[in-house]
């Protein structure tokens, strides 16, 4: 603990037997709200007067005026401790608003720029036979690739991840358990590009150099996805009440039947939520797919094991690398598609989690 102690509130001259006015030296309750509103109004007025109105400037100046006035007022009326408290309160609110700026900005720019090309044509046509600078073509091949690659990654990671979580919760004990949990945590931190390089290295040994295909991409995503699935499944399995397991054992049900018939069904909703969040995380991964699935596929490829496979994130990246205006439009539209998919997964996962959360007392 910190050894500095706070000063006791300085006793006023009227303490003791005399009556103390408890309201003395505090600003009215509505002071912050009123001050903020008047600051905003005054700043807006001044800016309009000078004809330099901008929302960011307005927000910044309002905040600055508010902080300065409220802290000085509080320091004079309430004393320096309360003033410091008000300053920190303003800063903490400011931090949160600051973090919302990029969120709103990213979503807004993607929406505005993406809508220019985002239509049925874009979603159903590939880039086959389209020169990069032509006013045609779409992302259908990339959507197909994303679905195939992410689908395969999910099919591999989910059984491994869930079974590893079952092992950690139901079987593992002592040292082995700690070691695996530690390395799962460490594995969450593997940079995605390293996962891509791992598959490049593996593929070079298995099939020789220069072989890129969808399966390689899926394996690299698996490396990134497994630890996420393990962590979330583990938490869900731990929420299953011990009573349920014991009731099952008491009926003479073997352990593996208990797990498959009692534990897993009870936590099914939570597991699904975790898996969907894991999918949402890897579906936007770009770096490993640049290395493993290739950057130059232009046509629809349904075969994971043959040839390069385009996908949405790499499509965005390669269009940006081409650099023309039309390429940027395609990139923004693809970004909008990708964000919509991710958000959909994210919201569905949250809804599922909320609706079917296991009832724990």
């Amino acid at each position, binding site marked *: *603990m*910190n050894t*500095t102690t*706070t000063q006791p509130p300085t006793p006023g001259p009227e303490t003791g037997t005399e009556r103390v006015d408890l309201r003395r030296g505090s600003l009215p309750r509505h002071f912050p709200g009123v001050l903020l509103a008047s600051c905003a109004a005054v700043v807006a007025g001044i800016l309009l007067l000078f004809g330099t109105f901008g929302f960011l400037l307005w927000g910044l100046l309002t905040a600055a005026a508010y902080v300065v006035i409220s802290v000085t007022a509080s320091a004079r009326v309430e004393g320096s401790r*309360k003033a410091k408290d008000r300053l920190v*309160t303003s800063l*903490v609110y400011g*931090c*949160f608003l*600051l*973090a*919302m700026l*990029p*969120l709103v900005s*990213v979503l807004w*720019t*993607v929406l505005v720029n993406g809508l220019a090309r985002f239509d049925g044509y874009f979603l159903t046509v590939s880039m086959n036979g389209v020169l990069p600078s032509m006013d045609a073509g779409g992302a259908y091949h990339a959507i197909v690739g994303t679905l195939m690659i992410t689908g395969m990654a999910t099919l591999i990671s989910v059984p*491994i*991840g869930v*079974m*590893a979580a079952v*092992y950690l*919760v*139901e*079987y593992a*004990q002592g040292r082995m358990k700690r070691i*695996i949990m530690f*390395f*799962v*945590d*460490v*594995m969450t*931190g593997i*940079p995605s*590009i*390293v996962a891509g390089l*791992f598959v490049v*290295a593996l593929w*070079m*040994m298995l099939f020789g*150099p220069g072989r890129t295909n969808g399966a390689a991409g899926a394996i690299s995503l698996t*490396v990134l996805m*497994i630890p996420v699935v393990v962590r979330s499944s583990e*938490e869900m399995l731990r*929420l299953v009440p*011990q009573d349920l397991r*014991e009731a099952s054992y008491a009926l003479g049900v*073997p352990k*593996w039947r208990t797990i498959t018939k009692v534990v897993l069904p009870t936590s099914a909703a939570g597991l699904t939520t975790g898996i969907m969040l894991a999918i949402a995380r890897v579906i936007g991964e*770009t*770096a490993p797919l640049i*290395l493993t699935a290739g950057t130059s596929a232009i046509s629809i490829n349904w075969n994971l094991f043959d040839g390069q496979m385009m996908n949405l994130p790499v499509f*965005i*990246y390669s269009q940006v690398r081409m650099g023309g205006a039309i390429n*940027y439009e395609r990139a*923004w539209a693809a*970004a909008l598609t*990708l964000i919509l998919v*991710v958000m959909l997964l*994210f919201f569905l996962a949250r809804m599922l989690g909320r609706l079917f959360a296991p009832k724990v007392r």
Partner: protein
Amino acid sequence: MTTTDAPEAAPPPRGKRRIGDVAFAGLAQGSGLLILLILAGVAAFLIIQAWPSLSANTANFLTTREWAPNVREDPAFGVAALAFGTVLAAAIALLMALPVAIGIALFIVFYAPRRLASLLGYLVDLLAAIPSVVYGLWGIGFLAPQLVPVFDAMTRYLGWIPLFAGPASTSGRTILTASVALAVMVLPIITAMSRDVFQQTPQGHREAALAMGATRWEMIRLAVLPFGKSGVIGGAMLGLGRALGETMAVAMILSPSLVISWNLLQSGNQTIAAHIALQYPEATGYGVSALIAAGLVLFAITLVVNMGARYVVARGNKES
């Protein structure tokens, strides 16, 4: 962490071992071990494939800046400039993100209206859901042009600091812009970890501080921050690990060059991850192997940072 304590594995029912039990237990254990195997495999395959280029390298791998491995004979390459750029970009990102993340965590736990708190926390989590390639696109399409006038002003008024010496880049595609994007990306990670520990501050400590007449800030400074220190440090290190390994935002935003420069407002520098992504499609000769060697360095750096983070967090949990 919010997980409740583990129900210890129940004792197996008595009686003879059933075949189903043995098979299922084996399967579960196999999955657990497979994870260790994959992690070991990542390290092993990277080392095996990096070896040819490292042994053929005519320059010192750790101190050379040049990158010329795309030849059949006598490649010369090193990661000095790349490692410098990686650490620089991640450090600046962390410097910007850490105070804001602590502020957000405090806001959500202690300041926000109770009903809104979980919704607001969810909004911060949304920042983590946006794919990195979209951040990259936002970085070149929106952030970099917006920052150009800011950079100009910085060189004019702060140009005497070597970090901000002019002339500023006219495209805004500098290491500082990339760091801003990285900061946004690591923000939710640090916030989540800090939130977790702040929420666990013992109710007694907080109420004791308030009962002594402490203001809210004094309560946070005396009770919450000392308690949450290890969690915040752990979260910061996890964020650092993420920033070190982040590829796309840097690869798309920064206009790179293999120099070691402290100047943040001019184009230059490069990170390992972005270099790999940009060079891989054109790699020939020893190129791929050399990039794998660079990836190995990145893997080692992030592994150390992440293990350190987990160690700090675990020790903090034990103490409390």
